[in-house]
């Protein structure tokens, strides 16, 4: 009986994550918004797991691993970019474009 | 024995020779290429005698190629394709000889391209498997693209890509049409094969799809012919291409379109092709081609462009003849296909020879040169006369047959088409006058040298053909007749009975 609220909340969180990605320019914050999306999905999994079995929870476990891995790589990339531009604002990321 | 290997040899030999030419040192290129093309011609000549007019498809070879799709390497020759094959092998040595001094850069590449082109063109004419046909149809595109693009005139890049994209556009739609036919036949019979005979016998009850398929085929072939609104690639390609390129373009490539109509578009979709409105449309387009082509040719300042537009007119006659579907008109169309190859080829050679001397294709760059180069003038006159279908030359026999034959099916249209004869005289004789007659305006023309022995060697065979076909076309007509008759019977059982009957 917690399923629907859970699904609703996760949908909202997911949307917020997407909105955040759309709304922000700071690479790190955008990445955090992505993490938010992942967590929203986690909520869905856990909620579903309650009625569908442990598979969902296990999945969340893996999602965390993935998130960690992405965080490691992603932040490293952001660092690398920062070395060049002294900024993580995506506004300055326009070397690559149709020209 | 000869029957078994000749076509395969005709296809394989130039390819091999082309590769060889490419690998040999450039200075040898033209000699090797000429030798190779002469050998090719020698291989093809016996076709003339061994061909049995009433024998239908002959010299058949059939080998599995891509069994997964029921694709075979199937080739054969009948009265329709025989002469186109011979024309190809006949024109190639002349083109090579004609490029002798015209081509000065990257010779190896050029002659290799010519040889590869030969394979492609012959392949198109002998293919009896639609996949193979399509492949060949495209394959001959690349060499021509390079010939125009690398050795062409100032505006060659534009002309080359225009030529390529135009043709590619048409042929790709045809490709889809072929596939639909293939699947249709496959579903109907359970046998999936691209074999011409198979598809032909199962092209029935397509329903409305037939219209789309015919449209696709029509587009592909009409672009090549070229028919009126789709012709604009031709002037550019002709003008920019080097002499040999123009000769082959006009002499052979254009015929692929009309050949396609005869071999595929008409037999596959007779119901559509002979539908009243379709007939009307095509006849009107042909008329536009004849008259419009002639009139536009009349005002061209560039001799090559003039010839290009005159080709549009000539091919208009062919289309008319094909669609009139009487024995005379169809054979006339076939004959014009050959004549146009010979006469227009010769014209392009002549223009090319002048270009080598004066580096100008503009008509007003000449004038009065008959006094300086009488031999050139004489030959140019004869060729022009054959091009305007003067009786006694090859041109007349073809146009006479087409018009006489078509008159039965479309009297009014044919009467209009006949005025094309007047227009032809108008544009070609005017050009002739402005080139070789009139006062010798440009002093630089005073020093022009007359034809060299090599150039004469290029032209004489063509002149011989012009007179031969003009005076004694019987051998040609005999060999065509059964094929033409078969085609008509197959398309119009009703007309077949009265084919040629008044």
């Amino acid at each position, binding site marked *: 009986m917690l399923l629907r609220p859970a699904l609703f909340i996760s949908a909202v969180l*997911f949307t917020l994550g997407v909105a955040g990605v759309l709304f922000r320019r700071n*690479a790190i914050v*955008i*990445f955090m918004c*992505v993490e938010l999306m*992942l967590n*929203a*999905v986690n909520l*869905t999994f856990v909620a*579903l797991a309650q009625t*569908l079995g442990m*598979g*969902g929870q*296990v*999945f969340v476990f*893996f999602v965390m691993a*993935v998130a960690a*891995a*992405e965080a490691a*790589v*992603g932040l*490293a*990339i*952001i660092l*690398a*970019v920062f*070395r*060049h531009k002294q900024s993580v604002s995506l506004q300055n*990321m326009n070397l*690559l*474009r*149709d*020209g | 024995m000869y029957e078994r290997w000749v076509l395969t040899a005709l296809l394989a030999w130039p390819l091999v020779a082309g590769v060889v030419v490419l690998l040999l040192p450039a200075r040898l290129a033209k000699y090797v290429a000429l030798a190779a093309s002469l050998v090719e011609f020698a291989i093809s000549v016996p076709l003339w005698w061994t061909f049995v007019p009433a024998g239908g498809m002959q010299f058949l070879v059939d080998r599995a190629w*891509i*069994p*997964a*799709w*029921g694709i075979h390497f199937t080739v054969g020759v009948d009265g329709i394709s025989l002469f186109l094959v011979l024309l190809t092998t006949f024109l190639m040595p002349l083109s090579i000889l004609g490029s002798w001094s015209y081509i000065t850069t990257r010779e190896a590449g050029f002659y290799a391209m010519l040889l590869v082109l030969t394979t492609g063109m012959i392949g198109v004419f002998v293919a009896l498997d639609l996949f193979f046909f399509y*492949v060949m149809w*495209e*394959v001959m595109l*690349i060499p021509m*693209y*390079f010939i125009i693009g*690398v050795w062409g005139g100032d505006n060659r*890049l534009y002309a*080359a*890509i225009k030529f390529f*994209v135009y043709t*590619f*556009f048409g042929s*790709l*739609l045809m490709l*889809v049409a072929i*596939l639909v036919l293939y*699947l249709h036949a*496959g*579903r109907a019979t359970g046998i*999936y094969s691209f074999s011409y005979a198979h598809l032909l016998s199962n092209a029935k009850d397509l329903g409305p799809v037939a219209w*789309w398929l015919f449209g696709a085929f029509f587009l592909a072939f009409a672009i090549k012919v070229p028919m009126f609104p789709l012709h604009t690639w031709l002037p550019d390609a002709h003008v920019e291409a080097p002499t040999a390129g123009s000769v082959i373009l006009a002499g052979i490539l254009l015929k692929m379109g009309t050949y396609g109509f005869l071999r595929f578009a008409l037999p596959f979709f007779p119901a559509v092709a002979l539908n009243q409105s379709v007939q009307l449309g095509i006849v009107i387009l042909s008329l536009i081609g004849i008259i419009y082509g002639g009139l536009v040719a009349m005002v061209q300042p560039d001799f090559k462009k003039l010839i290009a537009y005159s080709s549009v007119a000539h091919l208009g006659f062919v289309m008319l003849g094909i669609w009139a579907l009487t024995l005379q008109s169809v054979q006339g169309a076939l004959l014009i296909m050959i004549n146009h190859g010979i006469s227009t080829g010769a014209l392009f050679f002549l223009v090319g020879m002048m270009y080598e001397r004066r580096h100008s294709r503009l008509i007003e760059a000449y004038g009065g040169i008959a006094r300086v180069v009488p031999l050139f003038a004489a030959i140019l006159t004869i060729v022009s006369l054959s091009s305007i279908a003067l009786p006694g030359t090859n041109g007349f026999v073809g146009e006479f047959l087409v018009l006489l034959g078509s008159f039965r099916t479309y009297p009014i249209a044919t009467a209009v088409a006949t005025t094309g004869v007047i227009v032809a005289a108008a544009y070609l004789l005017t050009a002739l006058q402005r080139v070789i007659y009139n006062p010798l305006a440009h002093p630089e023309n005073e020093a022009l040298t007359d034809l060299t022995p090599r150039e004469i060697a290029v032209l004489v065979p063509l002149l011989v053909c012009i007179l031969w076909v003009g005076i004694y076309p019987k051998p040609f007509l005999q060999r065509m007749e059964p094929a033409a008759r078969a085609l008509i019977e197959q398309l119009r059982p009703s007309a077949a009975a009265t084919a040629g009957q008044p």
Partner: protein
Amino acid sequence: MRLDPSVYPDLLLSLLPELVLTGWALVLLLFVAWRHKTVRDLRIAGWLTLLALVSTAVATWWLWWNRAGMQGFVTMVAADDFRWVADWVFLGAAGLTVLISFAYLEREQLLAPEYYVLLIFGTLGMMVMAAGADLMVIFLGLELMSVAVYVLAGFDRRRARSAEAALKYFLLGAFASGFLLYGIALVYGATGTTNLGLVGGQVSIMGKPSVMLLAGLALLIVGFGFKVAAVPFHMWAPDVYDGAPTPVTAFMATGVKAAAFAALFRIMNQAFGGVAAWHDILWWLAVVTMIGGNLFALSQRSLKRMLAYSSVAHAGYLLVALTAGGAAGTSAFLVYVIAYTLMSLGAFAVLSAKGRAGESDVLIDDLAGLASRCPWLAFALAVCMLSLLGFPGTAGFIGKWYILIAATSAGQNTLAAILVLTSVVSAGYYLPVIMAMYMKPEPIAAAHVDVQLDRWGRSAVAVVVVGLLLFGVWPNRLFELARSAVESVQPTATTAITPP
């Protein structure tokens, strides 16, 4: 040979290629940790990588030879010919990438052997994707591949462009995998499982698919659509391809795309074979991708970006094969993937030879007169271009023809027509390359003196060209391979008429 996943040795056996490759990855990691200074180290690492790939290919071949297949029901990985063939494509792409990397890394002074480690991890991820019979496995494989490729894209850290490419790819990639994950969650919710087979079963029980399932399906397609760079999820591709080191770009354009397609293919056919909706969605994706990719490519002046857009267009063609479905579609898909891998790798290889500093500067017109300077290289590029154009005599044509057969036999004549028409458009940007090389004079004398491939790069290009021409004229073996792969992945092979 039937393998029972519930038995441990069988399980290992079924994962033999992956295990072999992982093992090599660890070996290489050790080696790198020990030697990572000189050019020679780099070379050795490269050789070890090639060795790894070859041995993996052998392992795969062994399984294929023994007709390895999964016994029983619920499994995490599939063992079927589709997987083996896909693995070969990935391994081949990786191998060719290694070959063209040798000279490149040295020229650009990227003396970090980790490059090869990451290459292997990326390949491993692809293989996992192709193997995965469970959304979870596929997801993890995809992440493994992505993480490795994110880093590779940004590998040339000294150049801002490379770093920027990595960032764009990473951010958008993570964003996309969020959607993918959500899609998986919804599918899980709709069917109670993430195993493709079971999902398929549930779907067939379900009859009319539930909204949740459809939403999940949609988000799955989005997630993979991003990886294959289908319009409108393609926008990262031109920039990332442009910024990444060229060998990596080649790897992305071929391996990554192929892997994503392989997974998508498996999912659609095994899990959603019974759902009609995805055909419709993919139909639209295919159309816009073909049109978009080709039109956008038309206006590019930089060779690298042009190739990037062309890879988008080719994703469209592959989507056509996918949409057509059926046995014909599947084998057409495999054939085309192989052809496509060859030709775009070849193109990128030549590009890497011509360019400097990440080839950001190579315009199409910079190739002017290449033919007279290095005829063979020009010839190779010309062949690749013609093959990309789908010109008869090349593998590209065979592939396209196969896709057309699949489409038409599935009654998708419109799709076929759009495909050929867009191919005509593509002539508008492939031909100028040939035109520049053969028909334009060298802008300055010695414009191409510094153009050279080392012998490995040359051998790679040679392999590509020979392959393209061979398959273009004699594709029979290719077809047999593809067809044998089809039955395995194609439970509903009867949905479409299959040419014999």
